[in-house]
């Protein structure tokens, strides 16, 4: 035998001698909650803290309360690497295990799942991402995007700027810039900003950053230097954010006029620029830090017992806490569903009803050990997002702090746009099923 045939034998053995079909935990004895994660790939910086927070909260419920309503949660991660191919594979893999919902965590994966959700009876919870139009529950009964959509976010940006300028009417003649990742995710706020520009008379300047140029943005920032927009909204992601913040500092753009959306507000987004980024603002709908009983419980029951993948010092970071909030929504949805259906072990159909009647009031937040952690939120049959408030987080040079009060979205402008877009979606996708699911009373 030559070396060649050894190698060959080894390779063939690995390739061929494998079980062809996947197996996994069976979901009969618990509630199966799959988490799509992206701890690898170019966006891992955002994906890792989010999924850490999500998993830690659910595991904490298991450790502290023995699950929800006495039923253990089976938490399983499926790695997507932010790649649509792998995401769909994950979906097919979890589908047979009776998942209560999916968290696709990528616009590219969310879009195909929106169509599948109604057929497979598995709700999609895209927490403040995905398709803004899917907030219309009458057309998308299976898709949920609380607490707010990208369109709400963009309108909050305008509303905040208006307040700083001394009233929305003062926006006339101002220049507002949008620096965005040139992909469906980044383009989301454009329709709303365009509509608001028309209404309030400001000028909207667009600065697309191609995905391949995420870390090479000098052209965009030269354009910004030329146009001198008064305020900039940053709808960026992954490596694009720290580069943009650094470029802003480099071009001595006033940091407190640069406002990131909620996916541009990770600790890793501002940290590379460090002190130079002091004053950088980012929309946020969850509080930062560990001063909440719920985070303390996570530390006590999960992290300190070594049952988590999170390094202790990263607990309480912005995106980690966002993951926790996401899991709180899941948990509340499950609780609701158990109440509505009277079952202990629920399935996707029950979960849809649970999410549709979701109310997390201030009192309930306090009960959950998260007083003031997020704005109270409510989802209804017709409104699957709730269009809830967010606030500005401010980078103080080393960490995120609270930089403003809760800001309400300009609902009067956003809602009609959502209706319109949702109708357009249904017409474009001929044969889009009409809502047949009944609404539950709260």
């Amino acid at each position, binding site marked *: 035998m030559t070396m060649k045939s050894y190698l060959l034998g080894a390779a063939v053995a690995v390739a061929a001698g494998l079980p062809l079909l996947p197996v996994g935990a069976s979901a009969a004895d618990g509630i199966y909650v799959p988490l799509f994660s992206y701890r690898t790939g170019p966006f891992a910086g955002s994906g890792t803290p989010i999924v850490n927070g999500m998993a830690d909260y659910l595991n904490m419920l298991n450790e502290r309360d023995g699950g929800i309503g006495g039923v253990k949660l089976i938490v399983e991660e499926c790695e997507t690497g932010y790649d649509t191919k792998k995401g769909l594979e994950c979906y097919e893999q979890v589908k047979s295990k009776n998942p209560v919902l999916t968290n696709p965590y990528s616009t590219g994966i969310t879009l195909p799942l929106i169509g599948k959700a109604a057929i497979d009876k598995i709700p999609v919870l895209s927490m403040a991402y995905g398709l803004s139009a899917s907030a219309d529950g009458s057309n998308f009964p299976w898709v949920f995007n609380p607490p707010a959509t990208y369109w709400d976010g963009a309108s909050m940006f305008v509303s905040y700027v208006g307040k700083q300028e001394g009233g929305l009417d003062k926006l006339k003649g101002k220049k507002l810039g949008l620096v965005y990742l040139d992909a469906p995710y980044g383009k989301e706020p454009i329709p709303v900003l365009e509509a608001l520009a028309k209404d309030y008379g400001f000028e909207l300047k667009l600065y697309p950053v191609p995905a391949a140029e995420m870390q090479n943005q000098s052209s965009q920032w*030269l354009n910004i230097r030329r146009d001198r927009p008064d305020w900039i909204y940053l709808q960026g992601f992954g*490596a694009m954010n720290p580069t943009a913040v650094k470029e802003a500092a480099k071009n001595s753009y006033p940091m407190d006029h640069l406002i990131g959306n909620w996916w541009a507000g990770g600790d890793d987004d501002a940290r590379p620029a460090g002190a130079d980024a002091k004053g950088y603002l980012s929309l946020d709908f969850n509080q930062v830090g560990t001063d909440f009983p719920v985070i303390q419980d996570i530390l006590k029951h999960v992290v300190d017992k070594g049952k988590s993948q999170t390094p202790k010092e990263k607990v309480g970071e912005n995106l980690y806490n966002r993951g926790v909030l996401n899991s709180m929504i899941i948990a509340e949805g499950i609780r609701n569903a158990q109440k509505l259906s009277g079952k202990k072990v629920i399935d996707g159909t029950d979960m849809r009803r649970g999410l549709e009647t979701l109310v997390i009031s201030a009192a309930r937040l306090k009960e959950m050990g998260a007083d003031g952690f997020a704005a109270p939120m409510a989802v209804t049959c017709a409104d699957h997002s709730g269009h809830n408030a967010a606030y500005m987080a401010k980078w103080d040079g080393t960490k995120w702090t609270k930089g403003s009060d809760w800001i309400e979205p300009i609902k009067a402008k956003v809602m009609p746009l959502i209706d319109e877009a949702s109708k357009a979606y249904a017409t474009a996708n001929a044969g889009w099923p009409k809502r047949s699911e009944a609404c539950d009373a709260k």
Partner: protein
Amino acid sequence: MDILYKAFIDPFMQMGAAPDLFVQTLWDGLVAGVLYSLIALGFVLIFKASGVFNFAQGIMVVFAALTLVGLHEKGVPAYLALAITIGIMFLLAVGVEKLMLRPLVNQPDIILFMATFGLTYFLIGFGELIFGGDPKVMIATQLGLPRGAIDFKFAGGFVSLQKIDIAATIIASIMVASLAIFFQKTRIGRALRAVADSHKAALSVGISLEQIWVIVWFAAGLVALATGIMWGARSEVSFALEIIALKALPVLILGGFTSIPGAIAGGVIIGVGEKIGEFYWGPLLGSGIETWLAYVIALVFLLFRPQGLFGEKIIERI
């Protein structure tokens, strides 16, 4: 007419109206170009000596930067981390030569090309396994790289030169110059050129191919490390940096796969060309044209010189 005006007159009017922005664009293009040529240089070194189109150069950039930062995070002092990283790049070169190149000697180019894809995958997995996939901050200040900017008043505006960019340009120039001297003046350099001309002839006069290959892969590793430090300092160290390596490909075809001066000239032409193009003509076409402008510039040059600007003339015989 309007479109003709926008295409042929308006951009030049803008250049005249705001000369400070024009100079700034030129400078940004120049810096980007120099950094592209650093990546391209890594490709050229390996292609010259072993005929391998090394797709893994991009991931080597990430891997080198990640090792450096990762070691520092684990408490190793900055300069020691730098030294260890250089050592690791050497081990990588030895490993590549022993495990990949030697068994594949004399295979068609495309097979070697494919093998470097294998290497890319391996390094992605290995790097993430050891150092994790989350982005890290480049330890630029700890390595003594300058921060801040020098602002010039110029024609009613200002031109801002980042110190790190100036440092990058200087370091790149030093690396190119020393590589050029190394190739021209030393014994190993002459051997390298002999190998580049013909493997077989070089072997027959007693030059060790293995040794040469280790040296070029190591040199490419060093270039990758320098590139990683510079790009990392401009944004952050993460696996997204790998995408930047694709920008080196038009530089390569423009400059020629085998020419070191070509990589430099190509980088500068592409860097300046795409920034000027994006800044002045981009809005006309709907922005974001720099993703493909570089390739089109290169393609136009190629149609006239199929071997690239500085490449060796391709002689075909039957």
